[in-house]
């Protein structure tokens, strides 16, 4: 079968779809499912958390191409990431789950627990090439529930000009003490220290984890001396004016905007800011988040998983599997992660990314060292630990509680929620 012929067929299908859709006659849901029954044709729905990409974007074009290759029409909807979990649960409840669902990785274990997702044993997705630290977030109870589409993680961006002015050699920043010393020098030079996001949502936990893990603490024991020292590190920075008070309410975007203003020496932020960093108008560099006593702290993995929700008509899995395989195959993965600005989940594509774009090398290393939030066999327990944890960080930073008290209370809450 020649590739060009199948592409032509797909285009014809697309055009037909457009004729129906563009002429203004809306097709009722019913016809869609009816035609979906016919093997090898019909419409397959994909939900993703990338509402920022519209029809003209590379991402949606890639989805269309994969649909064409599988011989079906793809109907894609982008939802806000915070909405998507509820939307998926609701749709599953109503027996209307999408054929392919792309969700944030810590949600996978929850949806799996709800019985919404098929296992790789059922849907025949191949996960052998995926790095073990990345696939972990999609595994629970010995089953794997999806494939990471790409990954990102956190590191420290620094502003070269500010560090030069403060007389800080970035090579000297190796652990918490030397980082704090660098922040103090920046402040002494009339600049600002570091900005991050400690907002009262999962985003806050995401940003706190590199410091928490970097202290040697474990999520099963929030109030260990190490865990308390991580909270104390942040709250001391606030007290000394090395970090702004606004971090308590900062999203990662707000925090980035502060850094982009050009006064901050450091910012904790993610892979996705690389494009914005180039536009910031100053020279920047990236180092991994240091662990307490030196070395690199594990940062949490971000990024989404592609999964195949449970359908009444199990015959649909075969085509869904083709769609997912298309998006995650070694050939296409490079296009996918480039379209989404992620780091690839497989060694082979990661290497290609580093060679074609040396700037990504540091992020590839960071992703390799990163750790899934739901890993360590936490699974659905993670969200119940994460909520008290971000609460404790907020309480300590706002001065409502001491770091020790905050973490002790959080541990009590987490223990009772997970028992």
């Amino acid at each position, binding site marked *: 079968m020649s590739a060009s012929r199948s592409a032509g067929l797909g285009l014809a299908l697309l055009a037909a779809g457009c004729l129906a859709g563009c002429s203004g006659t809306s097709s009722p849901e019913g016809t869609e499912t009816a035609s979906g029954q016919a093997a090898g044709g019909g419409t397959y729905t994909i939900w993703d958390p990338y509402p920022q990409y519209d029809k003209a974007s590379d991402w949606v074009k890639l989805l269309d191409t994969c649909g064409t290759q599988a011989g079906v029409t793809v109907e894609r909807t982008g939802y806000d990431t915070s909405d998507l*979990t*509820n939307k998926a*649960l609701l749709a*599953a*409840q109503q027996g209307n789950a999408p054929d392919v669902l792309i969700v944030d990785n*810590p*949600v996978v274990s*929850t*949806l799996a*627990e*709800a*019985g*919404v997702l098929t296992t790789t044993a059922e849907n025949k997705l191949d996960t052998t090439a995926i790095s073990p630290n990345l696939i972990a977030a999609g595994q629970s109870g010995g089953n794997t529930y999806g494939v990471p589409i790409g990954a990102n993680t956190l590191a420290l961006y620094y502003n070269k000009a500010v560090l030069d002015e403060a007389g800080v050699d970035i090579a000297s920043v190796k652990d918490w003490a030397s980082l704090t010393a660098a922040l103090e020098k920046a402040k002494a030079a009339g600049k600002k220290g570091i900005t991050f996001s400690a*907002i*009262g*949502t*999962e985003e806050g936990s995401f940003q706190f984890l590199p410091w928490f893990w970097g202290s040697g603490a474990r999520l099963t024991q929030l109030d260990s001396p190490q865990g308390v020292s991580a909270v104390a590190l942040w709250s001391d920075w606030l007290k000394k004016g090395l970090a*702004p*008070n*606004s971090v*308590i*309410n900062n999203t990662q975007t*707000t925090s980035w905007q*502060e850094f982009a*203003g050009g006064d901050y020496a450091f910012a904790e932020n993610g892979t996705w800011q690389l494009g914005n960093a180039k536009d910031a108008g100053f020279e920047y560099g990236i180092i991994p988040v240091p662990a307490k006593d030196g070395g690199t702290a594990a940062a949490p993995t971000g990024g989404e998983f592609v999964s195949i929700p449970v359908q009444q008509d199990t015959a649909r899995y075969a085509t869904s599997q083709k769609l997912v395989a298309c998006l995650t195959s070694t050939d296409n993965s490079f296009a996918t992660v480039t379209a989404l600005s992620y780091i690839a989940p497989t060694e082979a594509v990661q290497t290609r990314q580093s060679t074609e774009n040396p700037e990504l090398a540091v992020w590839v290393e960071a992703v390799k060292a990163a750790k899934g939030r739901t890993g360590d066999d936490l699974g*659905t327990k*993670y*969200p*119940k630990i*994460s*909520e008290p944890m971000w*609460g404790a960080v*907020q*309480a300590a*930073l*706002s*001065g*409502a*509680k001491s770091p020790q008290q905050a973490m002790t209370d959080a541990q009590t809450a987490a223990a009772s929620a997970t028992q």
Partner: protein
Amino acid sequence: MTRTAPAPTRRPAVAAGGPVRQGPGHRKAAWAAWGFLAPIVVYLLAFYAYPMYRNLELSLRHYTVRSFVQGDAPFTGFANYLDVLTDATFGPALWHTVVFTVVSLAFQFTLGLALALFFVRNFPLSATLRALFLVPWLLPLIVSSSTWAWMLNSDSGVVNAVLGVLGAGPVHWLTSPDWSLWSVIAANIWIGVPFNLVVLYSGLQAISPSVYEAAALDGATGWQRFRHVTFPLLRPVSAITLLLGLVYTLKVFDLIWIMTKGGPSGSSTTLSTWSYRLGFGNLVPSFGPGAAVGNILIATALAFGLLYIRLQRRQDLS
């Protein structure tokens, strides 16, 4: 109008407090009355009954994500309510709800009434300016709330910049447990003033000018006119405005959620933000307790609604 009025209308209409109709006409009048009500009754049943039932049902069962999807959650009676009432968050959240509601309502209504009185005498541009007061309502809450958060930001917010010029130190409006509740109240008052202004303004317009003319002939001063003429005549509209305001204020969650997420450390958590956090603000939703908190709020509104109807009835009788 439709003739398919529901069965209860067959009973003779002797509504307490209403104009009592006697004679052969009353039966026909009842038909007509329910004929006019038929669309709303159908509408309420079609669009509100299910969500309300759903909210009640969610609160009476033990839902996990799995049973939410499979629909086999066990019935647990009032266990969710008990959990919620004994939760450490409940007390502070209730208190914040009371403060948030009372302070917001008092300021919204007073400012709205003052502005309505100000605008009621026409002056050049008054209609245009009055319309511009509604512009905040054109913005999706996500935008207006974010703008407030922007202005109140501790480090780069315009409010602290002004305070700085005036020589006052920065206030951590959204990030200090002492201030966060007051900051979201301020934003909520801003949102609510236009509503009060517009409704009260139309209420003032409905008062016949001849009443004022009579008062003026009696030599009443401005304040006396307001105290003895305007305010009593405006009472029905004021009552419904306050009641609706109460319902809307109890319900506010998006504004607080966007500005502070109910934090820091729960200092701006109200019952409705708590309900949202339980049901939708976490990676793992706990629908049951979330719905229970929501229903406690509904019960609160119910109590105030009853109070309103009693007061109204007393007024009808007097």
